[in-house]
């Protein structure tokens, strides 16, 4: 099951995100999240009681708060009881769950949200806890180190070099000058090697933020949004957890997800790629066969703002928002999770012909 059946069309009808910042310690997670929940509800005119299904993505390890996702539900209005679910992943996977719920016909509207506060801890160390606990995690290889291994593999393969990576960083952050929510905008020094070959500029900013979208089915979507961003296909795939089993210069899971989501049936005009590290954009462009005519990361992407657990959902939201405002007719959105692009989700969004 990958492409939505014709009789149950589902669209992103609203998107909101916080301003992403290095720290937000004056707010608890629910305090950070609530304004974006209110913003998407306001945009559609829906009240919390009108939402049929709610799904969220987050990780307690980021802020070191046990069961933080249950506390975040205070911001949704979870009493009297609502139909709700949570994924310990990026909110893009929560959106996938909500999409399947709408496909079944059990719900006509869904609220999807995601948030991450990286500022209380060290996100490089926190992300080691998602690695294979037997052979890898005891060595504490941090997220930058693993991305650097992938970058060197690409350099060795002749797919990129350090100046090309710097150009990717520069292009994304230049694009982010048009994104009022971004954390890093405009010229940013490429800096010293953090873990060679990656420099500071090749890595995403560390920050806190949240995002929310509303999904709706069929005519409900047309009532709630002037130009719904119809999800024509969505799929996600995973690769072996052993880094040494994979070819780090390629992303077969992204390619397969894109194929199953229908991304290759017709060209897209926009692609929002979740590539926290510059070298990962090289891998994704190749896997997704994106040509120079495609506008890649007009938002600035994860190199401009990378609230962990929300950055993938934001890619879908940004792609949808471009369709809402008529800047795109057919957009691809990609989200990733795990080290070196281990898990990948691809969604294809379309606006109705104008």
């Amino acid at each position, binding site marked *: 099951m990958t492409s939505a059946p014709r009789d149950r069309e589902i669209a992103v009808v609203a998107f909101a995100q916080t301003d992403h910042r290095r720290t937000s*310690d004056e707010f*608890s997670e629910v305090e950070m999240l609530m304004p974006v929940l209110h913003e998407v509800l306001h945009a559609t005119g829906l009240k919390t009681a009108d939402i049929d299904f709610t799904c969220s993505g987050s990780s307690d390890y980021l802020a070191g708060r046990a069961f933080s996702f249950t506390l975040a539900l205070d911001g949704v209005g979870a009493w009297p009881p609502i139909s709700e679910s949570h994924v310990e992943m990026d909110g893009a996977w929560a959106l996938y769950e909500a999409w399947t719920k709408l496909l079944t016909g059990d719900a006509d509207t869904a609220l999807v949200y995601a948030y991450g506060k990286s500022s209380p801890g060290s996100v490089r*160390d926190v992300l080691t806890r998602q690695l294979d606990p037997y052979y890898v995690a005891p060595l504490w290889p941090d997220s930058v180190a693993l991305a650097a*291994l992938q970058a060197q593999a690409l350099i060795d393969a002749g797919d990129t070099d350090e100046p090309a990576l710097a150009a990717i960083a520069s292009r994304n952050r230049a694009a982010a000058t048009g994104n009022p929510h971004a954390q890093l905008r405009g010229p940013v020094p490429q800096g010293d090697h953090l*873990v060679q070959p990656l420099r500071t500029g090749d890595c995403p900013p560390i920050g806190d933020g949240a995002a929310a979208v509303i999904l709706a089915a069929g005519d409900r979507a047309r009532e709630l949004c002037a130009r719904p961003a119809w999800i024509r296909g969505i799929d996600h795939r995973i690769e072996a957890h052993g880094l040494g089993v994979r070819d*780090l210069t390629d992303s077969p899971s992204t390619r397969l997800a894109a194929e199953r989501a229908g991304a290759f049936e017709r060209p897209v005009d926009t692609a929002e790629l979740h590539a926290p590290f510059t070298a990962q954009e090289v891998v994704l462009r190749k896997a997704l066969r994106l040509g120079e005519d495609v506008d890649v990361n007009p938002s600035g992407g994860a190199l401009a703002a990378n609230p962990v657990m929300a950055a993938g959902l934001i890619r879908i939201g940004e792609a949808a928002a471009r369709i809402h405002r008529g800047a795109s007719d057919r957009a691809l959105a990609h989200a990733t999770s795990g080290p070196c692009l281990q898990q990948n989700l691809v969604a294809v969004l379309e606006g109705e012909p104008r």
Partner: protein
Amino acid sequence: MSAVLKAPLVVEFPFTRSLGPVQSAFLTGLRERVILGVRTGDGRTLVPPVEYDPVTAEELHDLVEVAPTGTVTTWAWNAAPRRGQPLTTPFAWVLVRLDGADTALLHALDAPGPAAVHTGMPVRVRWAGERTGAITDITCFEPCDGPRAEPAGHTGEFENPVTGIVAAARLDYTYSPGRAQTAYINALSGRRTVGERCPSCHQVYVPPRGACPTCGVATSEQVEVGPRGTVTTFCIVNIKAAHTANLGIEVPYVYAHIALDGAGLALHGRIGGIPYDEVRMGLRVEPVWTDGARYPDHYRPTGEPDADYDTYKELL
């Protein structure tokens, strides 16, 4: 708005994990300076070995020894090692394909600098002096100029195999409770209890979390509640907890839900100053503070008549 509170928070746990047969053989092998891979149905040798083929999901158990020498397949220079990493001096992260293996193992390479490392370079294992059956039994890899080692053809059968590992994990945070809970904690330091009222349903939440879970809206209006309250329900505790915070408390004692006057939901607290078997629903209580405490030690009867059931039934 006063500054939010902050405090160090350490999350630490010795994760104890059991091993499957293949993982057990591999980690026991490391203890004995033997490196084992697992053979797949199509003849590839996976190192480190896994119990299921990542391509076919076929169960794997055919162990095969590989050499302690190999080749770097990719690398990254780590100029600033972090806590828990294999070496404390600058080193290269490497994926190494050991001689005889078809996949690569992640570890550290001890080298004088990035100029001394390249993809394709030959390396060998440096064993830890004391080995317990863990991936850290390999201290790191080191450059290898000499001849390649030959595996001895070990079968993977060992005396006293390792059946589990303890993977200690520690993460350090700076905890901040946010605006609403900071106000609550600051008020407690003045022996006052402050909640927040929902602007929509007017319920008063204690402790406040900054949002009304019924209405899904922000709360901000602070309301002082108590200090007196009513026992809404309770239980009698007969087991002495091993937790140090409770060691001074004799059993049996009463643990209760207490609706402070003006609060829209009940807090938890211990009831003292009254025999345990005389505590009842509706009992009127007040907090008892001890010097230097950050919250009431317990609640004791005020001597007032009991509250009518109707006044607290919605708070049960």
